[in-house]
């Protein structure tokens, strides 16, 4: 009988580089920086690591394929190393590999590392994406970019809930303003400037209805985690963070090929979060979760995620947003570190960057962003586009 991984694995060390347009740093430098911080934080040595997972997505503009670049760069001593990739949920996938390996009893200590070097692409945005859909689908995909794929969710969401686009854009702007306010307080964030509702709403359109500030940045970065068997965690530090659940859901294909899906929500988020709550023993996420880092690649994604996670009722996340429910001083702070919005989105690193904030918050090391007495934290990492994607939901706590 499968019993899940609740409280079997703990995080005892984490590292995270500053995210940004790091023109003078290559992905190898970023891996070293995140890794060194993580093992020093954990108080372990390289030789203690049983196995390692490396998450990176756009291998062609970054470190290349396989886990070899990580193993060779970090001089890992001939240990098992695996590269994972699951679009923008890649970072969480690396963490999942490490956590499940420890939970299985195969290893005591594992490393999860995520890295992406996006600013060597040569133009703005993510790399032109035809190739990544494979040789069959790229023949029939439209000329779409991530902003457009998510913008279509905005169009649908507004239509489905009868929201006037200007009111809808106001709620989206409110989400952005909140994240920028948090990001401004975070020295590791890429964008550290507060913005106003007016600035956000008047920004140039990237993909209707999303404007410039509705889109997260594109940046370079790396993050790493050291995970251990829960029963040995306190030998390393007094304040380990325990994994309560780490669930993932991939699209079944029906959202895309069948006509029942409404494009106003992300089905995988709903599925993964329900499983995660069950595993973690959460009955009422709105009341029980203390803080979260969700995949705010675009403001509309964050809006529907509130509903898909079961925090806000369907069609009514807007009310919570406008009421400040997700603000740093609100009932359930979301994106306390500034989110993808302010960190940018070095694909392989983002899932681990989210966890880095949860980890620091639990340890009371979040500085001006510190949330009082958090009990449970949630990270939500989404890869792909709303009709076809993979979502991971991870719940951690003390």
């Amino acid at each position, binding site marked *: 009988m499968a019993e899940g991984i609740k409280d079997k694995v703990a995080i005892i060390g984490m590292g995270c580089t500053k995210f940004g347009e790091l023109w003078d740093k290559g992905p190898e430098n970023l891996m070293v920086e995140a890794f060194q911080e993580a093992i020093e934080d954990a108080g372990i040595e390289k030789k203690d690591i049983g196995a390692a997972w490396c998450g990176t997505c756009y291998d062609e503009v970054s470190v290349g394929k396989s886990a070899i670049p990580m193993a060779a760069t970090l001089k890992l001593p001939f240990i098992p190393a695996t590269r994972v990739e699951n679009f923008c949920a890649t970072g969480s996938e690396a963490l999942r590999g490490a956590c499940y390996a420890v939970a299985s009893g195969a290893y005591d200590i594992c490393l999860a590392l995520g890295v992406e070097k996006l600013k060597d692409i040569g133009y703005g*945005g993510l790399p*032109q994406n035809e190739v990544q859909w494979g040789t069959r689908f790229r023949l*029939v995909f*439209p000329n779409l970019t991530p902003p457009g794929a998510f913008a*279509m969710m905005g169009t649908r969401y507004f239509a489905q809930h009868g929201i006037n686009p200007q009111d809808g854009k106001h709620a989206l702007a409110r989400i952005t303003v909140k994240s920028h306010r948090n990001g401004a307080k975070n020295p590791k964030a890429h964008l550290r400037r507060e913005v106003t509702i007016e600035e956000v709403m008047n920004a140039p359109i990237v*993909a*209707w209805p999303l404007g410039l500030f509705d889109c997260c940045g594109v940046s370079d970065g790396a993050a790493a985690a050291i995970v251990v068997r829960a029963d040995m965690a306190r030998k390393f530090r007094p304040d380990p963070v325990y994994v309560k659940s780490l669930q993932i859901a991939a699209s079944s294909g029906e959202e895309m090929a069948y*006509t029942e899906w409404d494009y106003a929500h992300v089905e995988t988020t709903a599925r993964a979060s329900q499983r995660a709550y069950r595993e973690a023993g959460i009955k009422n996420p709105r009341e029980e979760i203390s803080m979260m880092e969700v995949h705010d690649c675009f403001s509309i994604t964050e809006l529907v995620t509130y509903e898909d996670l079961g925090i806000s009722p369907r069609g009514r996340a807007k009310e919570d947003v406008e009421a400040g429910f997700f603000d740093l001083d609100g009932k359930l702070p979301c994106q306390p570190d500034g989110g993808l919005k302010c960190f940018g989105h070095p694909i392989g690193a983002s899932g681990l960057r989210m966890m880095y904030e949860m980890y620091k918050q639990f340890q009371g090391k979040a500085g001006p962003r510190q949330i009082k007495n958090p009990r449970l934290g949630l990270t939500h990492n989404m890869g792909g586009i709303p009709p076809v994607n993979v979502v991971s939901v991870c719940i951690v706590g003390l």
Partner: protein
Amino acid sequence: MIGITSYGAYIPFYRMNRMTIYGALGWLNPASLLPGEKAVANYDEDSLTMAVAAAMDCLGGIERNKIGGVFFATTTAPYRERQNAGIIATVLDLRPDIRTSDFTASAKAGTGAFISAYDAVTSGSADNVLVCAADCRLGKPAGYLEEVYGDGGAAFLMGDSGVIASVEGTHSVSYDFVDHWRADEDRYNRAWEDRWIRDEGYGRFISEAISGLLRKYKLAPKDFAKVVYPCQYIRAHADIGKNLGFAPNQIQDHMFTATGHTGTAYPLMMLVAALEDAKPGDRILVASYGNGGDALVLQVTEEIQKARDRRGIRKHLASKKDLGSYEKYATFRNILGIDTGGRGEEVASTQMSTLWRERKMVLALCGSKCRRCGTPQYPPQQICANPKCGAVDEMDDYRFADRRGALFTYTSDLLAFSLSPPAIYGFVDFEGGGRWFFDLNDCDLESLSVGMPVELSFRKKYHDVARGIHGYYWKAIPVRA
């Protein structure tokens, strides 16, 4: 009785006033101004896509497996080797045991294909041959031909039952009269002096072909309701008919000031316009011009009454938008060589073996329909996408290309590279079921709304210059009135 059993046409949505060209480049050639406007293919249209559009107009509800051949006439085929008519046959989801041929290298190739189709049906070697003609020629910037040439297509089905206009006779003349030419390595047409072309070629060969036809079949101008022949010079066009003894009301409107000279398709598009107004019993004379010319006699039958629900010429002419700027035209036709930026430079390779395997999915927009639950789905699935069904390998081919749909959601994207930004795309829910996302064209963001009706249009998806590949797929467009 053998002849036309159906007809169709296509004129692209965009028009350009010739004054726009003159405004941009007239300073180089002040004597060049011509009246009216010309039809301009969108950046993702070419002769192949326009021929498909005309063929779709022509075929309507006709069973595709009844078609026994495709003859495609153009001087601007996307491929020199890879038969263009064969691509059209695949796009139209025709059966494989048919005859396909390209006709090219002269503006008279349209009537050449038409007469060849007639001959094929007459001889019994093929039945129900689809003839399509389309052209998208380029005159060099600031030259006279740039104002002359327009873009468009026409299509006919040639058969022996349900004939709406029977072919009663043909006559051809052929001369190596080099008035316009384009060598293997040329993009733009060249021409000799206009006065010589007008007086020694255009003014003579159409008359010679028509006179020869009249003599051969013992007919006189008064026996015809309409005479159809292309216009290269407006006054000379009128003079040809007049000198042959046709009254002005017998001469079919030349559309030169509405579409421009559409090459191989031109006389055939004019014939479609003539058929739109024809009555049973009318005789129509059609002649082409180009290195000589062809002439033929058509006799309209009672069946013409059943063939009125086409977009044809009249509706396509009425459905239009002015392109506005010459620079946009020059960008669409790759005359300018714009800076596409890094994103625009990236073209994924095309695996020919994949394209072959998936030809129905890509070119004919075929998905699948589950035999167990009846769900149409795209792309074709082996395992039914209906979560309540899940049947395995119980699928039939299901063609979405000729179905309308409702726009489920959409966006206009300024990050995506497009030759006509913003890139607009959205999801379409098809009538009868099925959903897929498509680029949208011939529209702007303001004209779109969730739920609005759309139809599909076969378009160029990419041009991979480095690998010599024109890639095609379907786009959604607002339903053209």
